[in-house]
């Protein structure tokens, strides 16, 4: 048996769908039409055709010990809420988190791909894959999804957060749909509600302090508040009053879930502090 040590080439050989276009415009070439008929999982929304399930807003901010990732729990298909318990912040390995937005189907496959690919590398070569190597792996799978994304399915945008053991600092990387990678100094956001809150991050950094100088509670409070604003301004984002969001941290000790109690008390404190301010003032 031929040994490669590389999951991608293995999967290409076995014809696994992650390496191929689902829409298939570059395979038979018979029809490059934009209408894709697939079974519809949820018929409750108006309008014909297949509507993909999408994850909404995810946020990554630095804090003094590393990086915090926060995401609401909603997944939508068109105007329908598909699921209100989705997990959009996922551990890839001990020090790498991926927050996903956009196509759920593709993103979950990519998470599985990366997990397996990193493990395969480590076990084969008896060393962990370098940060640069991990970033390239992610770019590769994002790129492979472009043909489908252009046809309207499978497009997703990840944020990759990690803890750099050499520099003793958190790192945040975000991608565009074509696989271009950017490193952010303070924060990253993706998903339907992210454009609405983009400027708020800058406002916080300029008027309060940089996220990387905040302690865990401060940074978490800002991230949750941002999520709340995204939910106010974006119809698809779930917010946190009904279902608690998901929050994870990466520090030198690895990845940890922020406990539910802590999240609940922070959410309650945010709501009691700011909740009333956005209501119209009645004398």
């Amino acid at each position: 048996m031929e040994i490669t040590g590389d999951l991608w080439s293995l999967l290409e050989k076995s014809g696994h769908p992650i390496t191929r276009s689902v829409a298939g415009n570059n395979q038979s070439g018979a029809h490059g039409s934009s209408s894709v008929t697939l079974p519809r999982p949820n018929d409750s929304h108006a309008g014909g055709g297949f509507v993909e399930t999408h994850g909404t807003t995810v946020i990554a901010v630095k804090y003094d010990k590393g990086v915090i990732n926060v995401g609401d729990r909603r997944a939508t298909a068109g105007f329908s809420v598909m699921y209100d318990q989705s997990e959009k912040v996922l551990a890839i390995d001990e020090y790498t988190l991926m927050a996903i937005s956009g196509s759920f189907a593709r993103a979950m496959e990519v998470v599985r791909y990366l997990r397996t690919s990193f493990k395969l590398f480590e076990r084969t070569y008896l060393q962990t894959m370098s940060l640069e190597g991990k970033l390239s792996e992610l770019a590769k799978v994002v790129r492979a999804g472009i043909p489908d994304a252009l046809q309207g399915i499978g497009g997703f945008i990840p944020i990759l957060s990690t803890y750099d053991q050499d520099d003793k600092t958190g790192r945040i990387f975000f991608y565009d749909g074509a696989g271009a990678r950017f490193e952010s100094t303070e924060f990253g956001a993706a998903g339907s509600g992210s454009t609405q809150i983009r400027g708020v991050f800058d406002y916080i950094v300029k008027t309060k302090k940089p996220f990387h100088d905040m302690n865990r509670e401060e940074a978490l409070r800002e991230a949750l508040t941002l999520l709340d604003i995204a939910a106010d301004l974006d119809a698809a984002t779930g917010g946190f009053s009904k279902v608690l969001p998901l929050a994870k941290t990466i520090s030198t000790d690895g990845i940890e879930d922020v406990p539910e109690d802590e999240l609940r008390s922070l959410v309650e404190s945010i709501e009691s502090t700011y909740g009333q301010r956005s209501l119209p003032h009645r004398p």
Partner: protein
Amino acid sequence: MYSPFDFNEAISHRKDYVDEALRGGSPVVGLTYEGGLLLLTVRRDQRKVYEIYDRHMFSAIGKQSDIENVRLSSIQIAHQEGFERSPDDVSIQRLVGFALSPALKKAFGEQFTVPFVIKALFAESGKTAASDLFYVLNYDGEFRQVHGVAVVAGSQAAEDKMLERLGEPNASQSREDALRQALSAWSVGAREVLRRQIGGKEDEEDLLNPLRDIDEAEADGVFLRDELKNGKLEVGLLERRANRESRFRLLPDSDIESLISEYR
């Protein structure tokens, strides 16, 4: 004209060649304990106990190139299976029975290829202690499943002595007890290997053995003191209660040190 005799002879030549090449290998001991499974051996420079997948590890005696070939194939097959199906579907039984054994058998049976020189010991950590198991895979593709206690060594005599020393499997023993027992079994196996190397015969009173006049425990001590000067004790664990996705870890030096400090 090719006769059955030629076939038998050819096979037995190949068998002799591989057996001879395996003879000097440092034995490997596999044991279950209350928290999981362990593989123990003493090595020179090259690592000997490897992680294969989330719940699987492996060690072997033989030629390094063949060990590496089997190791890499195993890892690759397990990861492809784990991705295309699920990590729960990766099993030693499939890995050994469906992939490795046929390949080894083929290589062993083909007259004009070099046979694999390897005897491998795989370990799989199950959901419960009762489903923990070992697989011993031989160079000719033969394999067997064993529970509780498993060994590989360069000769049948060495393996017999090790199994005798290990006795009945005891899945409820502590890790410390299991390690001590495994080290003792390694020692008796490695002594047998050494005895044969310096000319001792299979069933003969070992007149050449310099340690023949002292009792077993003392002989172990003297032998281990000497072996651990140049060799390094290596222990791989599959821990059922691991708080990680992978249950494998190598026992760190600090724990090794407390185990072997009496042989310093």
